[in-house]
């Protein structure tokens, strides 16, 4: 099963019907299931064979090679045994229908199983010559035309320039020409590479993962390899009740009289929110997410501010760190979901994140504290030095809930890493976009329906608690960034 870029789950199936002693009928279908469980049963291909000695023996079916076709549907390949030989097939699905196209032809006639979708919408897969057992990497388009073939190679990552990186570490351009070699290790959602030992110390940079290459740029569709295509920046697809930044600021400042509880028997936590924005107005979502975290912390016996502190400038952020008592809270999972679920640190921030475009291809990771123009409204490499750990306990940690706050970009540090370096404390953040939901389970945001023209309808944000900022990736965990 995969979850394709159009948000539907696709489950291929094959079965045989044994109803007479003359022939046996075979059927290949595909279930297309939406998030509500509604489904279409797509008939892909039917074929018949004369019965054998045992007319009702369980037949052997081939592997179904199934991959997303961007956000338009799927492409699948399969193999049948007909007329005394293997026959290769390929189909493209759009909506609830499937169209047969010519199957890509690999050396020896073996089935080509799609593995990646390349930047230009073509596919790169694997094939094995049934006669010799030799393996090939095969690039082909959605019509089944083979573009190029590389022997003894397996595709791993599609790159944004239209090329691909093989399991050998050899990089190939869009024509299959070898262009270089890299040391390929396991790559994570952060874009960092890890050696087999798997320890954080084994992290190697720069990264090579090209998230923008396609909906399916790596084996399994994403760094988790769980067969799910992923969309980008989902929180910005959701609709919220917009909030007036000035009114919100006034309300929050009024409510901060009782900021930190005086009962400090347990660990102390400080919850911060950024402004909701103008063009990308998050409404009350940041505040509601902070209130949700506060309620959970209180239940666990910790002390936290029930009214989040609004930080509209870097000065606000710095003042909040030093002006709200001694912060001792570490990261404590709020639910049994552990680190896959919502977490709160001694200081937890809810707000917008992204990159500042400095021109000339230079981008710096930042927290966007306010929709006002000016560097003082963005926490970034140039002003992170204003933050102080004077009131942070040695075990205090920081959590940043903001889009891509934990995403290293090429050799550039994420804002999470920069804050960790400055405060000498561990910072937890997510390397992906965030969205808002009453269910904290990390998962890809899926459409809740379709408009008449087929465009997706995204979930509307609730205006009540509980509300969580949810990473847009199935099962993705917050990443710890250690000071260095």
């Amino acid at each position, binding site marked *: 099963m995969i979850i394709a870029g159009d948000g539907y789950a696709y489950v291929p199936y094959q079965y045989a019907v044994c109803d007479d002693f003359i022939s046996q009928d075979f059927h290949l279908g595909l279930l297309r299931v939406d998030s509500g469980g509604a489904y279409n049963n797509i008939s892909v291909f039917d074929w018949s064979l004369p019965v054998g000695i045992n007319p009702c023996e369980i037949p052997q079916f081939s592997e179904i090679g199934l991959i997303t076709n961007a956000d338009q549907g799927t492409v699948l390949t399969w193999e049948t045994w007909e007329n005394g030989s293997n026959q290769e097939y390929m189909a493209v699905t759009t909506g609830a229908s499937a169209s047969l196209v010519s199957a890509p032809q690999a050396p020896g006639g073996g089935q080509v199983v799609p593995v990646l979708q390349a930047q230009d919408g073509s596919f790169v897969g694997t094939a094995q010559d049934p006669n010799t057992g030799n393996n090939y990497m095969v690039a082909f388009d959605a019509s089944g035309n083979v573009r190029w073939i590389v022997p003894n190679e397996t595709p791993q990552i599609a790159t944004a320039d239209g090329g691909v990186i093989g399991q050998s570490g050899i990089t190939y351009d869009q024509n299959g020409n070898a262009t270089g070699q890299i040391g390929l290790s396991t790559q994570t959602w952060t874009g960092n590479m890890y050696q087999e030992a798997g320890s954080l110390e084994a992290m190697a940079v720069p990264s090579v993962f090209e998230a923008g290459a396609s909906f399916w740029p790596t084996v399994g569709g994403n760094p988790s390899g769980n067969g799910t295509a992923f969309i980008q920046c989902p929180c910005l697809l959701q609709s919220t009740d917009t909030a007036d930044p000035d009114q919100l600021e006034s309300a929050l400042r009024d409510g901060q009289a009782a900021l930190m509880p005086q009962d400090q028997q347990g660990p102390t936590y400080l919850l911060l929110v950024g402004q909701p924005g103008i063009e990308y107005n998050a409404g009350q979502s940041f505040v509601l997410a902070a209130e949700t975290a506060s309620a959970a912390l209180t239940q666990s016996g910790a002390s936290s501010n029930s009214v989040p502190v609004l930080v509209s400038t870097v000065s606000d952020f710095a003042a909040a760190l030093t002006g709200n008592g001694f912060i001792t809270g570490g990261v404590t999972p709020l639910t049994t979901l552990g680190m896959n679920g919502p977490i709160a640190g001694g200081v937890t921030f809810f707000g917008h994140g992204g990159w500042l475009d400095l021109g000339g291809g230079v981008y710096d990771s930042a927290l966007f504290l306010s929709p006002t*123009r000016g560097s003082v409204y963005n926490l970034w490499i140039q002003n992170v030095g204003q933050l102080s750990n004077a009131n942070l306990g040695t075990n205090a940690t920081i959590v940043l809930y903001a889009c891509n706050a934990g995403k290293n970009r090429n050799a550039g540090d994420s804002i999470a890493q920069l804050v960790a370096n400055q405060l000498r404390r561990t910072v937890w953040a997510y390397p992906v976009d965030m969205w808002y939901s009453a269910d904290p389970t990390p998962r890809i945001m899926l459409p809740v329906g379709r408009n008449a023209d087929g465009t997706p309808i995204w979930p509307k944000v609730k205006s009540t608690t509980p509300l969580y900022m949810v990473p847009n990736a199935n099962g993705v965990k917050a990443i710890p960034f250690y000071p260095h």
Partner: protein
Amino acid sequence: MHGAFALRIVTAVGLMAATGGPALPQVPSAEDVFARFCELDSQGGQLTSDGWQKIAALFVNPGTPRHDRIIVTDRGGQLRPAPEGGKVGVGREHLQYGQIDLPQIRFSAVDGLPPGAKIREAFMYVVKVTGPGGGQEWRIEGPVPEPHLTVDAAIRYVNEIRANTKDATIRKNADRTLAALKHIR
């Protein structure tokens, strides 16, 4: 014809009576000038000679047109302007989906950023200068940044290039780019 002329006179007299004098043309504010640039840029203004002239007129030192690549974005919006002395700091934010390399018309991610990432372009100023008529006008300090087009404007541009090129490679690239842009839309 005469009736229409008479109506215009009545309207003008009425306006003068209401304001106590002739209506003067309003000088666009710094924010207006920047908004005008954002609108022209998002629709591909930098890619035509007429559009470039209009955009260049909004800048103190526009420089020369930059046709290395097009950044493809959503419509985005302006940041709240911030006065700094005699200047007004302005900026825009948008979601960047990718870039189209020119003249190859090849679509790819922007410098390793994930598509759909939120980007702030926040380092421009609008300053007061003396205009051609001797009055004070707001202009953006140059040079003009790289072209930032909405997805729809980018599709229109690529379609136009595709229709007018004889280069098979560019046509092929344009087809792929159009497919990618339509997915985003």
